[in-house]
């Protein structure tokens, strides 16, 4: 049993963690402006599809990433318009966004590529594996930290940038204020609507990149519903990490590890269906630790309950 834990498991954890981490960071932005975004799953799916479309028609990976980010940004604006402008219930809108994402990508898969289920093209290039010069040559660490897709490094950088944004910048400070007490934020003249749109848009971009990592980083293909619950796992990671970028980093790594182990266990003649349950069992287990915690602020929720 012990030989499932080796350096390549760590390496595959880092690869697996990327979509979850990016989406969870995006989710935390929404949580910080007081919006519980259950539509992450739909965002990721749209991002994954847009990345494949971009790659197929432009042949450029960079344009593919750009398209994934841009299309998901537009998609997130729809979510923003419904929740911020029309003040629709965010859970209902989030669920609708998930189904819309699933239906839309399935439909466009047939309309654009004329296939059902999955689209694969052997001429299509996936994201390159970056061999980082000095790092790569370090024994033991080298193979673990080097040789990942650029999005892997982007996701870790995003956690650090988001930390600086929340706790060092004025805009981040105000974003947190909106989520903590929107009425108070309005009373001092903060433009809460603009801050909420800002957070939702950034969430869209991050989720778009998460999708691109799925369809271009780990494999080079699109399958229907390929987000496979990662949006919801990201949601749990966000809550477990208390919407703090480093907390999210830690909890995402945990889920990434479970993902990697579940794949590894398939090599031990365990049924796939069984091993695939692992991340979701952890999700349910995590809920026990989350009982009274939530989207970042205990005190805020207690106060609003009064």
């Amino acid at each position, binding site marked *: 049993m012990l030989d499932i834990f080796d350096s390549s498991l760590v390496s595959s954890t880092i690869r697996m963690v990327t979509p979850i981490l990016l989406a969870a960071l995006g989710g935390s932005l929404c949580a910080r402006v007081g919006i519980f975004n259950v539509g992450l799953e739909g965002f990721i799916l749209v991002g994954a599809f847009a990345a494949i479309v971009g790659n197929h028609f432009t042949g450029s990976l960079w344009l593919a990433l750009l398209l994934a980010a841009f299309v998901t940004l537009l998609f997130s604006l729809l979510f923003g318009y419904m929740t911020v402008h029309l003040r629709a219930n965010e859970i209902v809108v989030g669920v609708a966004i998930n189904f819309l994402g699933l239906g839309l990508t399935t439909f466009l898969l047939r309309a654009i590529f004329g296939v059902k289920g999955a689209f694969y093209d052997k001429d299509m290039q996936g994201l390159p594996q970056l061999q980082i010069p000095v790092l790569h040559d370090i024994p033991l660490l080298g193979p673990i930290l080097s040789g990942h897709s650029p999005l892997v490094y982007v996701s870790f950088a995003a956690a650090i940038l988001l930390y600086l944004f929340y706790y*060092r910048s004025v805009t981040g400070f105000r974003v947190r204020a909106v989520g*903590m007490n929107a009425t108070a934020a309005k009373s001092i003249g903060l433009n809460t609507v603009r801050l909420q749109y800002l957070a939702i848009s950034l969430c869209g971009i991050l989720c778009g990149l998460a999708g691109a990592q799925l369809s271009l980083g780990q494999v080079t293909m699109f399958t229907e519903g390929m987000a496979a619950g990662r949006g919801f796992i990201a949601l749990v990671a966000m809550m477990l990490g208390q919407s703090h970028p480093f907390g999210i980093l830690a909890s995402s790594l945990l889920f990434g590890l479970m993902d990697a182990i579940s794949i590894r266990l398939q090599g031990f003649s365990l049924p796939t269906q069984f091993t695939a349950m692992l991340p979701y069992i952890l999700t349910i287990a995590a809920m026990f630790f989350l009982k009274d915690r939530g989207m970042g602020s205990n005190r805020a929720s207690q106060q609003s309950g009064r």
Partner: protein
Amino acid sequence: MSVRLEMKNMTKRYGQFLANEGVSIAVGAGEVHAIVGENGAGKTTLMRMLYGMEEPTSGEILLDGKPVSFRGPDDAIRHGVGMVHQHFMLFPDFTVAENIVIGYEPKRGGFFDRAKAMADATALAERYRIPVSPTAVLGECSIGEQQRVEILKVLYQGAEIIILDEPTAVLTPMEVSELLATIRTLAEAGKSILLITHKLQEVMEVADRITVLRGGKVTGAVAAKDTSAEELARLMVGRDLEQLSERTEQRGEPLLVVHQVTMQEKKKKPVLDQVSFAVHHGEIVGIAGVSGNGQSELLQAISGLAAVQSGTIRLKDTDVTNRTVALIRETGLAHIPEDRYFWGAAKEETVAENALMGYHRLPAFSRGIIIQRKWFHHLVAAWIERFAIKTSSAHEKAGNLSGGNLQKLIVAREMGRETPLLLAAEPTRGVDIGAMETIHQALLEKRNKGDGILLVSSELSEILALSDRILVMFEGRIVGELSRAEATEEKISMLMAGGRGDGSTQATA
């Protein structure tokens, strides 16, 4: 004293309803100007117009002689008008300094300069002698300190005219006197203060001039030195206040017997420590104490909302220790809870549905599993009439009622149960003088009928006016009992602070 702010002939109309009609006030620099009136008299509407939250139907606002019109609060802030809201507009997870500078954060190199924020907050606090600790997290500060942060925030934004909306409603007596001192300091520094309140003692203590509103109109504009609390009350209510009806001496059998009750979380200091007392038929027992000394827990223990670890609670000779709320209420208890929003009402539901809560099980109001709403509406209509609850209809959302009116609804509901025992926690918090009179009268009538009442209040005047006996709580214990005859404000205050009530300040063992 030059006139800094003038509001001329302000009128605000909502449909058919005139919230303000031809209201004019003038406030000078360095003046504390109190605006008093009952709930719904139009104080808040007037201030919302000044703060840019409502557009006046007609009227004119002059700042330093120049006409202005504000598009929103941020516009008002830019013109030097700041408001300290009744419900604080603060952020619990931020530090005190962050709460003060938010919206106008000092920056360095594009980043939030927290060191400068800290320094600015400290300097401001020293300049106006308002004690706060800038590094503390706001959510861990006392209510009094949070309010000081709110005032500093307004000062930081550069306010010259400061509106304080019911600022003393949430404070302890000690914090109130500190706040009044702060208000004087600010006035001496040349700020104009608009104080909205209906507590007349405070007005007499701190205000220079007073404008009285009733039904949206000015019924009096006087200098504090030329008037008295009685005259103000008359101007507010439009008639002389009635004296509370005669009390009859009529203490009966014990009704509620609390014996050696202790409530304690594991290995922590007990929140209730060996509490014993009794409430008899035909008696009002008042519990005084600085809030947070076990009063809330005691009420929760008696009403079944929280479990006790030892001791017994007997109601009408039935042991109700740690029984369910429903059973205790059935045995004969009604409860006016201290926090009307948290325990007392469902804000999103209608007035009628809120009134129905607790009655839904009674046979008179239900047939099988179906609630008989028709019968009930007569009763609710009667309550609305008796307690003069201002609501557009019984189908209005309870959350749309003002705090005072919601309180009256809850009082009516709980009194309507006609139970032998009533727990009344802060029964008049946030209600106006007229309603306070009605509620006090109703409590006294209930007592005179032979029912028992346990009254918890942070207003000593209320305790003194109503109670037959007064118990004082300090750190989870009952540290003193005073009869109606021997109780004075001084004696109670001493006990509340942990002293023995005989003049020494030593804590009781």
